[in-house]
């Protein structure tokens, strides 16, 4: 079982542009084969509070994930609990290990998707990330939310395991070297 950070990113490394915009990410064609394969592998997702707020406000909550094609449990890491009617969302107030552990248990034989720049960074720092899947979009956003954060204490070695061209996106799959 793997934990996979899965995002569409701009060439300058952002997963969201100014004002948390992600509309740009849909301007480069249909989901790619690597994207669909990754979606099928993911049994549950760990996301951050910021994702939760935005997903509720703008992206149809859980139904907005992978265009509604995906089913599973979403574990939202937060210190503040919220009123939530959707049973597909669980709040986790503990550390990153606890959140990923809960998602792994829920995913069964499948993998865990990691959504968000801050969570990707936390998983990397905690040695909890196995794979990075990015769909690299030919756009420079200039500012926004970076996939790999702004600064990090350690250098992380990766292995690029596949590269693919799909319409206007470049699919890149990396394995984190432990």
């Amino acid at each position, binding site marked *: 079982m793997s934990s996979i950070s899965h995002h569409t990113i701009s*060439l*300058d*490394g952002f997963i969201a542009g100014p004002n948390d915009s992600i509309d740009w990410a849909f301007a480069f064609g249909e989901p790619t084969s690597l994207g669909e394969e990754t979606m099928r592998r993911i049994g549950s997702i760990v996301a951050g509070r910021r994702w939760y707020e935005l997903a509720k406000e703008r992206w149809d909550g859980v139904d907005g994930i992978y265009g509604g094609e995906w089913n599973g449990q979403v574990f939202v890491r937060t210190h503040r609990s919220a009123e939530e009617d959707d049973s597909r969302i669980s709040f986790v107030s503990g550390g990153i290990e606890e959140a990923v552990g809960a998602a792994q248990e829920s995913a069964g034989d499948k993998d865990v998707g990691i959504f968000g720049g801050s969570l990707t960074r936390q998983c*990397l720092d905690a040695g909890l990330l196995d794979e990075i899947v990015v769909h*690299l979009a*030919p*756009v*420079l*956003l*200039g500012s926004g939310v970076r996939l*790999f954060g702004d*600064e*990090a*204490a*350690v*250098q*992380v*070695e*990766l*292995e*690029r395991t596949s*590269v693919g*061209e799909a319409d*206007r*996106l*470049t699919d*890149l799959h*990396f394995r984190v070297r432990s």
Partner: protein
Amino acid sequence: VERRTANIGAVVMGRNMFGGQPGPWGDDPWRGFWGEDPPFRVPVFVLTHHAREPLEMKGGTTFNFVTDGIEAALERAKKAAGEGDVCLAGGAKVVQQYLAAGLLDELDLSVVPVLLGGGERLFENLGAEPPELTLVDVVDGPGVTHLRYRAAN
């Protein structure tokens, strides 16, 4: 990659890329990182605030020092390159200035599988409206991913 470099007729680079300490050149000026026979073999235009006579090296490389800005340097490099392309050799700050000014036509990038966690970013200070890009080519090198983009200015 070899195919990309074959048509280069001139090179533009920043002062840090050329090297030597910042500030005036001094009495025994720095002659670049590349020895007496640098690999460029074409005219090289170095952006600097400190004027200096052209420096002719072996093998066809001449370092020209340009003090009147990025547009003037590109102008001179284009003239020197004739039918050839002008290669912007960096560093990051110079690339950013040309990108922000809308003077860059193509971006050739090599993505190396490592997360550094800090350092100098290539894409920063791009201005309010970064140029639009079109993906032209992806080459799967050994471990390295070469990407080529065209910029619409």
